[in-house]
């Protein structure tokens, strides 16, 4: 009798663990070094992802242009991207979909700006003619929108020398005079300004082009997304909860940010989990105009929707 009961207990325990591991999905999440992704870190630390059956592991990706290939190769299952990286990848046949929003760039709360040496002030596009401007990546959203702004200002982009400059090097390169300015994201922007190395331009180039636009968002391969709809719904739900939690638990949120990024940003981005196909329309037009893309992509296929 005792043995029978013990056997039943073990069988039940085994069934419980087996079913738990059967529903847990291992998800490797790639992210860049930016506060845009804090809600996801919070979702992991607070156990929301685990409760939703997502066994999440975060991997920092120094070169974000590797993100699309990593998603297709299934090295990452979810990856953070921006539109100017995502759209050319989709255009050239990589089957990627946006699964959740990350941040929006709103006028009045710009988290990325042009900073220049104190030798000159930028009030309009013509002020950067003949200058060397560091961009975080060729064809990054910062670079593309900067070039769009220059075009809008009537400036020939060829007259501005655009140089790829990793964020950590921007301050030193401005200080040594090797570049005249850079498109710096927080907290690099604050480091440059607060240490007296440079100053923010008088005009915010990105919001001068568009006052409200999607900035960072989460993507996955279409193949993985179609196989894991519950994980995507769980991820979105946890991001929404994470944003609310950050608002109420500022100090603990800063600790988590420091843990994942190695620093704290003084400016909080505008997090937003909502994402629609229409959010990409502007970037498609700009990419086409600047030659980053050569043909339009099907707008209905960009954001994953459960069938």
């Amino acid at each position, binding site marked *: 009798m005792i043995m029978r009961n013990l056997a039943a207990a073990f069988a039940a325990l085994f069934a419980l663990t087996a079913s738990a591991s059967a529903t847990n999905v291992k998800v490797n999440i790639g992210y860049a070094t930016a506060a845009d992704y804090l809600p996801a870190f919070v979702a992991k630390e607070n156990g929301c992802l685990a409760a939703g059956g997502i066994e999440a592991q975060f991997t920092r990706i120094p070169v974000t242009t590797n993100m699309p290939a990593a998603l297709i190769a299934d090295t990452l299952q979810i990856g953070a991207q921006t539109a100017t990286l995502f759209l050319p990848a989709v255009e*050239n046949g990589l089957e990627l979909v946006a699964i959740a929003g990350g941040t929006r760039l709103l006028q009045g709360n710009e988290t990325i700006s042009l900073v220049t040496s104190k030798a000159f002030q930028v009030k309009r596009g013509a002020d950067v003619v003949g200058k060397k401007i560091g961009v975080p990546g060729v*064809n990054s959203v910062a670079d593309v929108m900067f070039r769009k702004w220059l075009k809008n200002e009537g400036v020939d982009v060829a007259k501005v020398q655009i140089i790829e*400059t990793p964020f950590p090097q921007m301050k030193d390169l401005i200080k*040594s005079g090797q570049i005249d300015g850079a498109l710096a994201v927080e907290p690099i922007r604050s480091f440059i300004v607060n240490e007296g190395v440079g100053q923010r331009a008088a005009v915010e180039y990105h919001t001068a082009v568009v006052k409200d636009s999607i900035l960072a968002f989460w993507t996955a391969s279409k193949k993985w997304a179609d196989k894991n709809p519950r994980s995507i719904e769980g991820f979105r739900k946890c991001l929404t909860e994470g944003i609310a939690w950050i608002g109420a638990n500022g100090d603990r949120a800063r600790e988590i940010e420091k843990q994942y990024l190695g620093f704290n940003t003084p400016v909080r981005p505008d997090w937003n989990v909502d994402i629609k196909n229409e959010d990409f329309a502007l970037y498609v037009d700009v990419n086409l105009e600047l030659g980053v893309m050569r043909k339009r992509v099907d707008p209905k296929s960009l954001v994953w929707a459960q069938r």
Partner: protein
Amino acid sequence: MTGTFHQSLTAIMSACREYAHRLHQSLAPIILACRRNAHRLRSDPISKGLAAIIFTLLVIALWQAAVETGVVSRLFVAAPSQAFGVIVERAESGSLWSTIGATAQRMGAGWIVGVAVAMLLGAAIGNSQAAHQFLSPTLEFFRPLPASAIIPVAVLFFGLTAKMSTFVIAFGSIWPVLLAAIHGYANVPRELREVASTLEMSRLRYILVIATPSASVDIMAGLRISLALALILTVVTEMQASLPGLGYEIFLAQRTFRSADLYAGLMTLGIFGFLINQALLLAERRLMRWRTA
């Protein structure tokens, strides 16, 4: 029973021998023709060239087939037909020539500087025991440094500019020519040195008239190696500093996931490298005709 088995086996073996003999008789002319062709191939430059072209076409055909049949993904490996299409398109628009021109100019400037420095140092070290003792240990320290490792230092001094690129290319180009020049100058035949001594030639005249032509075979070999290195470093520095050229085109193609453009860039680079090497070989044959006279 055993006897019958033995007879059957003997009959089978006899038939096999007969068959092998007839097969050898049929194949013998073919084997002889192949041997004659192989010998002609070794000695006939036109046949050698044709063989190289056939092999290249075969590789391209296999590559095309691999992409068409899905053995390799089109996303990451473009078909050669697509890559050629991009090259033709760029040639028609004119952008191909300006891109090649920018790379050639950058490479040429760095290579010439590197070769000039290498020849001067090589002549000094190869002809002077004192120069050898003073300079060689320091040069041996710098020689094993990969030229690409110098890039961060070059960026600090010159920034992300064309000067940085020229410096790195020159630094990388020096070593093959320097080593070849040292060897060439140090091994001038004794008879030629005695002629210079008999004619009471000055050191400079000896170097220009006797030692340099004697060392030219070694120097030319060094030049070909350094030219290939110069091209590699040109592409790397173009990618690093976003300088216009073939390297930057390949870098941009990778960033925008345009695999056809990427492979077009690689093919253009390969063809360009082949052509400049052929140009150097032609120059060698012309300049050193006296060697075979």
